[in-house]
């Protein structure tokens, strides 16, 4: 029996991984809405990565057709400089998505690490870290960003993502901590300690996978949060207009092209707005699948 087992398990890990992705595929197939979410999300990522490469660095303006309504030539019309709105949305997507990705990464890594550490160690460390988190949670985000905007110009999406990420990990830390506190009372964690397994094993292999759906959901939600925050900042006009960002477009559409009163500028407003809406929708649709992806029972059924 053992002889037949040995060669079999050499590939056990890779089989497991294959099974996992097959399970993910099954979960996604269950609802068409999830597939739609994934397709839209993939489309946005493709747009952000490849899109700006296909377009010139400075979009050519056509002064003969400024602030045009949507047409076959310009699907969302043109801006007051005669540039194609769709091309602007594509160019702006890189900034928006890169910021969102950096924010999500920082939020999740910092939030999970602090939450796990706090919930697992408990005691003094927990108290200190959670007071810190509370303090951070009480800092009003938007005013702080406005203040920071006067110092930094946020020309780079990385800079923006870093700041938003550092402002955003509090909620994740709290959620992860409470999850850790409840999971550590479960029999399997106690058993792992009783068996003498290392702390890194307990955290990495036992705790983290059980929390994966929460973490993944939080990550996706923080992506939408990051999109709103940065677009909001740019829309308010407190940041320089040089950046390619949907927020800049919204600001210009409303305050320069007068989209609220001029019907011809409506396309200029709708372009970035629709992009934000679609991106958020895609994330909401994908979040729906997270619980089933990371729960082996729901995945296999």
């Amino acid at each position, binding site marked *: *029996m*053992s002889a037949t*087992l*040995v060669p079999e*398990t050499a590939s*056990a890990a890779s089989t*497991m991984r294959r099974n996992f992705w097959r399970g993910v595929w099954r979960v996604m197939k269950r609802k068409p809405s999830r597939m739609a979410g994934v397709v839209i999300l993939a489309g946005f990522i493709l747009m952000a990565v490849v899109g700006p490469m296909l377009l010139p660095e400075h979009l050519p303006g056509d002064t003969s057709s400024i602030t045009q309504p949507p047409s076959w030539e310009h699907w969302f019309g043109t801006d007051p400089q005669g540039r194609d709105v769709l091309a602007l949305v594509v160019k702006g997507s890189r900034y928006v998505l890169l910021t969102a990705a950096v924010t999500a990464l920082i939020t999740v890594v910092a939030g999970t690490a602090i939450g796990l550490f706090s919930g697992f160690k408990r005691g003094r460390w927990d108290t200190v870290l959670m007071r810190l988190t509370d303090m951070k949670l009480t800092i009003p985000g938007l005013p702080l960003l406005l203040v920071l905007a006067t110092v930094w110009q946020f020309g780079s999406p990385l800079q923006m993502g870093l700041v938003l990420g550092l402002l955003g990990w509090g909620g994740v830390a709290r959620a992860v901590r409470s999850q850790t506190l409840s999971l550590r009372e*479960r*029999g*399997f964690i*106690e*058993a*792992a*300690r*009783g*068996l*003498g*397994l*290392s702390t890194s*094993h307990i955290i990495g*292999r*036992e705790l983290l*996978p*059980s929390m*994966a759906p929460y973490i993944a959901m939080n990550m996706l939600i923080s992506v939408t949060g990051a999109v709103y925050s940065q677009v909001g900042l740019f829309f308010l006009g407190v940041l320089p207009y040089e950046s390619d960002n949907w927020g800049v477009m919204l600001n210009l559409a409303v305050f320069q092209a007068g989209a609220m009163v001029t019907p011809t500028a409506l396309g200029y407003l709708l372009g970035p707005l629709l992009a934000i809406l679609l991106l958020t929708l895609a994330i909401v649709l994908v979040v729906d699948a997270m619980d089933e992806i*990371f*729960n*082996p*029972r729901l995945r*296999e059924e």
Partner: protein
Amino acid sequence: MITGTGVVKTFKQRGKLLGAREVRALRGVDFAIPKGGAASFIGESGCGKTTLGRIIAGLESYDEGEIAIDGVSMSALKPKQRQPHFRKIQMIHQDPYSALNPTRTIHQTLHAPLSLRARQTGRPKSWIEERAAEVLTLVGLDPGTVLSRYPHQLSGGMRQRVVIARALTVDPEMLVADEAVSMIDVSLRLGILALLKDLRERLGVRVLFITHDVATARYIGDDGELYVIYRGQVVERGPVDTIIADPVHPYTQSLLSAIPVLHGLELPGEQPVVPLESLDDSRSEDGCLFAPRCPFRQERCTDERPLLQVTEGVPQEHACFYPERRSVIARPMSEV
């Protein structure tokens, strides 16, 4: 030998406005479980039996007294140094549903402790797989079908077997089974009990069985010792069958009287003991702890606390001033 002397544990409940309330979980408990032996702690919930089991498994600290594992005193060691000793004592939890990580396959669950073991003992990697199959076979599961499964794909009985298999991966000297069958389907319980008994006989693993159901305690082995615990104190202690057949402490008698009689198969005992229900003074700290509920209490019982002792004519130890045999348990009709 795994021994405990005078183990005391007090829980402090904080958060109350007027200071801390103390709950005495254990009031100086002695026990000794010899190599290959079996012991059962029985009592109602809240009597301290689970706390004692967790202390023995190293999952809980104790305030006073001494635990010694194979002659090594635990109190003298630093927490880190205790770990290898306590690892010889593995806990089997009541709930096989939360005792296994739902996101890990059985293979992964067994692999982790085994690879640690392989590293410690310098065994090759192939040993891990062999041993995983071996422990599963030991607990009566087919490794071929079980290894790749997730816990939710197994029945309660199978999960509990996996939990036992996982405990066996570290070659324990004792298994502490805390109500290990109470959440398992009735028709499968006996199988788990038989497995624990079998492991005792084949591997010489000690079994400490914690339960509120006296009848199951017999199935770990009729050579085992029974400890009847009431409010943190051992009130009766002796060989399982002696105590079941001839209990002398009124609390033990109440416990045994409360076991349902299978009318039609059994006849009820002639002198069942029903404890008094006193809602207020049952937590009294004076005299015998059971006195407020004892139907046979005398004046002395409320003034003085009886300690575990041996008296003439009674084979088992007991903590009662007026020990008396009563016929409380149901007898099969075929025997009468």
